[in-house]
């Protein structure tokens, strides 16, 4: 499959994502305003990544693209409806958009991706949608490639090792730009469903070799595919044939959310239990201390009594002695 020809690509992305509507609704030239608002904190954060985006692309090597990328990301940071701030990974997405769109269009397409394709939920602190997508991916792997799933389980190869990189950068740090663009084309068309289809198709083509390989070779491959070993036309073709049920995806999403809630409740319970135990311990300690104090007091009292008795004895003795003396004097 060829994907979209370069000269149409920008426009197609712009329209498919719904960015064209967003830009039409904008009456006040929002992008131009937003990119000018000073935001030193955001700027510092973003600037760290400017030179570290699409590092093999000429525009970034010659440093002609960095200022455009900065403008788009700063405008995004100043955008009122931005719920997720700036996360590494966005720099790659924005940079890819800028290869085919002007800054204003790229900005609105980024906004559309965040709002219409769940990207905002993915980049939010804690990466809530990444967690969900990773869980969905685990279930898909279990369903479509059970042998591989078991092999990964056996090796303790958890999918979060590669899904964060795959999903947060739209594969741009895993594949070449050429392949990434094709994947993006399909993503704009079909969203997450297609992304999962591609992942299944890709791993299916590697299944035989992965079943024989040790942990380190599999992880290295998953994070940095050698594209000469990947038959992409075949993978795209097979991906389309994989039937994914939206119901399943929804079911797994809910399942994950419930599990997470249960976990959180359990953690809270544990925390509460610990707190109660600590309280009990404190009480016990206090009681012990009180007991000890009482005992000491009793002892003191006893000592006091003994003292009193002794004093009385002494007094008596003295009295007796005095009587004896008196007797002596009388005598």
């Amino acid at each position, binding site marked *: 499959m060829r994907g979209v020809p370069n000269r149409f690509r920008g426009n197609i992305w712009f329209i498919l994502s719904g960015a064209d509507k967003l830009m039409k609704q904008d009456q006040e030239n929002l992008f131009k305003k937003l990119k000018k608002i000073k935001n030193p904190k955001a700027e510092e*954060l973003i600037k*760290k*990544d400017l*030179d*570290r*985006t*699409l*590092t093999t692309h000429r525009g*970034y090597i010659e440093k002609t693209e960095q200022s455009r990328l900065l403008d788009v990301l700063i405008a995004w940071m100043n955008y009122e409806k931005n719920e997720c*701030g700036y*996360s*590494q*990974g966005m*720099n*790659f997405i924005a940079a890819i958009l800028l290869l085919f769109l002007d800054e204003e269009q790229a900005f609105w397409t980024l906004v559309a991706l965040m709002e219409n394709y769940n990207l905002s939920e993915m*980049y939010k*602190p*804690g*990466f809530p949608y990444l967690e969900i997508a990773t869980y969905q991916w685990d279930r898909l792997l279990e369903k479509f490639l059970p042998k591989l799933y078991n092999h990964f389980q056996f090796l303790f190869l*958890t999918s*979060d*090792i*590669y*899904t*964060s*990189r795959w999903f*947060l*950068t739209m594969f741009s*740090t895993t594949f070449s730009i050429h392949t990434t663009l094709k994947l993006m084309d399909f993503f704009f068309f079909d969203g997450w469903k297609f992304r999962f289809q591609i992942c299944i198709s890709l791993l299916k083509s590697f299944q035989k070799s992965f079943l024989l390989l040790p*942990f*380190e070779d599999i*992880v*290295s491959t998953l*994070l940095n595919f050698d594209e000469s070993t990947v038959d992409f036309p075949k993978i795209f073709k097979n991906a389309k044939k994989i039937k994914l049920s939206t119901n399943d995806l929804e079911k797994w999403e809910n399942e994950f959310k419930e599990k997470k809630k249960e976990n959180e409740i359990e953690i809270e319970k544990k925390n509460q239990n610990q707190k109660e135990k600590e309280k009990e311990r404190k009480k016990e300690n206090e009681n012990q201390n009180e007991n000890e104090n009482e005992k000491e007091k009793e002892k003191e009292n006893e000592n006091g009594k003994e003292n009193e008795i002794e004093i009385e004895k002494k007094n008596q003795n003295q009295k007796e002695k005095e009587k004896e003396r008196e007797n002596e004097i009388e005598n």
Partner: protein
Amino acid sequence: MENFKICFMGDQSVGKTSIINRFIYDDFNINSQSTVGVDFLSKTIFVENESVRLHLWDTAGQERFRCLIPSYVRNSSLVVIVFDITNKTSFKSIEFWMDTVQNERGDDVIVFLVGNKTDLEDERQVSLEKLEKEANKNGFLYLETSAKTGHNVKQLFRKIGISILKQNKKRKELIKPELDENTSLMNISLNIDPNKLKQKEESGCC
């Protein structure tokens, strides 16, 4: 050959990826791509006539990614906390990274503290004394490197290899005596006269 897991952590753009790239490829790229999520590389080194296979986990430095890191620290034999000697903030973050390590592992892991970018001596904001102080306070091993010039990078991984071998030997020695005790216990129980056991049972003590 045994594998040893090493986790690199530290603030954004302090040079974690560059140190690893210098070690693996003996190469430096001034603009290496930002690491999103985690990266993985492995290499075998030879120290003290033994070969050691290192699994290097290169984690993302942006604050937002900190929530992903504990799972990589969990099974590490050794943790490398990197900071940038020209960036005070990255030095201050050491405390956070230490907490992460201690929460996951307590004191049961070797920690290396690495100040990177010694090639930018003129812009230095953190003195070597401070690094030494911080490291000694926590009992860490420390080193200053430059991924750009290659300064101390080989030494760093040599030291990592030596520490790991030492720790591994200690572990094995710790496991051995336990085994001996167990076997001797078994002998004792086997030496007991079964007739005496029966007598005891029959006498029916409380």
